[in-house]
């Protein structure tokens, strides 16, 4: 059922406010031309080169916005390799039935059966990897 994708947890996540960072250390934008989702992510880095803070702008569907909100919570402390690995793990969760890489992503498990929506969830994770040079 398509309606299963839109539980209260997803809707609450999608309602989170996001804002661009002033003078970020890195930024990246990716879009999904098929559906029009577009995610811009700003990153401020700590001295060790890991993510200290993220901001950004999400023009996208509810699933994309919710995924971006989960990522914003998870991103601090991640390095470039971690971000690339996380994007791969989220892809494996959606496409290969792997376990969610962390509990908050369990809300997206129902998306597995909707191949056309995998890209909506993956987009913010790909953008973080891109912003960090991966």
């Amino acid at each position, binding site marked *: 059922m398509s309606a299963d994708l*839109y539980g209260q947890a997803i809707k609450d996540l999608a309602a989170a406010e996001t804002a661009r960072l002033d003078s970020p250390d890195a930024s990246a934008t990716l879009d999904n031309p098929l559906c029009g989702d577009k995610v811009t992510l700003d990153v401020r880095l700590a001295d060790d080169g890991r993510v200290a803070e993220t901001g950004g702008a999400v023009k996208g*569907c509810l*699933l994309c916005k919710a995924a971006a909100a989960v990522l914003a919570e998870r991103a601090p402390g991640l390095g470039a390799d971690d971000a690339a690995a996380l994007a791969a793990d989220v892809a494996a969760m959606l496409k290969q039935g792997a376990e969610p890489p962390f509990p908050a992503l369990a809300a997206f498990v129902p998306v597995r059966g909707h191949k056309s929506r995998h890209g909506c969830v993956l987009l913010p994770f790909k953008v973080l990897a891109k912003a960090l040079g991966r």
Partner: protein
Amino acid sequence: MTSAIREAFPVLGRAGFHYLDSAAMAQTPGRVVEVVAAHDLAARANVHRGLHEMARLADDAYDAAREAVAGFLGAGADEVVFTGGCTLALNIAARALAGRLGPGDTVAVSRLEHHSSCLPWLALAAERGFELRWLAVTADGRLDPAGLSVIDRRCKVVAVTHASNVTGAVTDIPLVAGVAHAAGAVLVVDGAQMAPHGKVDPRALGADFYAFSGHKTYGPTGVGVLWGRREVLAELPPALFGGGMVGEVSDTGFTWAEPPRRFEAGTPPVAQAVGLAAALDWMAGLDWPAVRARLALLTRRMLDGLTALPGVGIVGPGEMEARLPVVSFTVAGCHPHDLSHLLAGRGVAVRGGHHCAQPLMRVLGLDEGCVRASLAAYSDAADVEALLDGVAAAIAVLR
């Protein structure tokens, strides 16, 4: 009447299936599928190249298909070019005209255009150094007649859609043709959305080129048509090169075949052309005034039913004059992709997104695109009611 039409489409017999995405691809009658299969089983050969029995059968079928398209367009068969689709047809027209364009020239393209009708000109503008001018649209998604003033003596080509794939608005082609021809410009018309709604006479409309696709006209995928005014085609060079489009080839050059074969390089879509002819034959059997009247009632119901729902805004004309049964809409606070997915879960097939019309989306302020419901001759009241019920239910889920 509708049930008799629907019976020709086996897929429409699926319970709970409501297909409102015909502007992207129309369903095809079972008869068309049978004709394509029969051709490939009994007459599969390349055309205009062989002398054997199979080749003769293929030649006859392909030539008959060209005659059928000519009949649909009220044209001569020598004006009908088969292509791989409407996009390729429009690209061929642009490429064939490219040699006439350079710095100091302009090409006018409407903001209503599908990407297949504007990107060839954007690409050529960068390559040839001419200026591309956008023709304005009104707030309700029609070509703005006042904007035609940008078409002046520098303008060499005008490209417009006969009907918008987003707003459903039908363009006044004779008006545009008058302005274009007064300036000495060639008029290229994208007929992809109009052709599925009955016979078209591009010469009478004033077009110089007219393109449409097979898959939106109840026919197969992989085939399209470029109609060109005989006297225009005769003056243009080929756009693609290969077998079938040449006369004599020497070490230093070659001569061109006469139109339409000049524009059909390589093996054409033979079986698909035969299938398109079968689709046009099926269309010819419909009572089009009655079909259009029924679809107009369904469109009115869609417009009224959608606007009665909370937060719904129509993208396109609210009135029925000069519009197709294509209705696009937005819902405040609900992304088109989410709406389309929820509708799909109820068996209602629509399209959400920018509809390959980003210049129009931008000027209409539709950053997230819109949802489009599009009807065809087989659409019925149950389809429309399923859409309206589905949108109401989707809003309840998403808010």
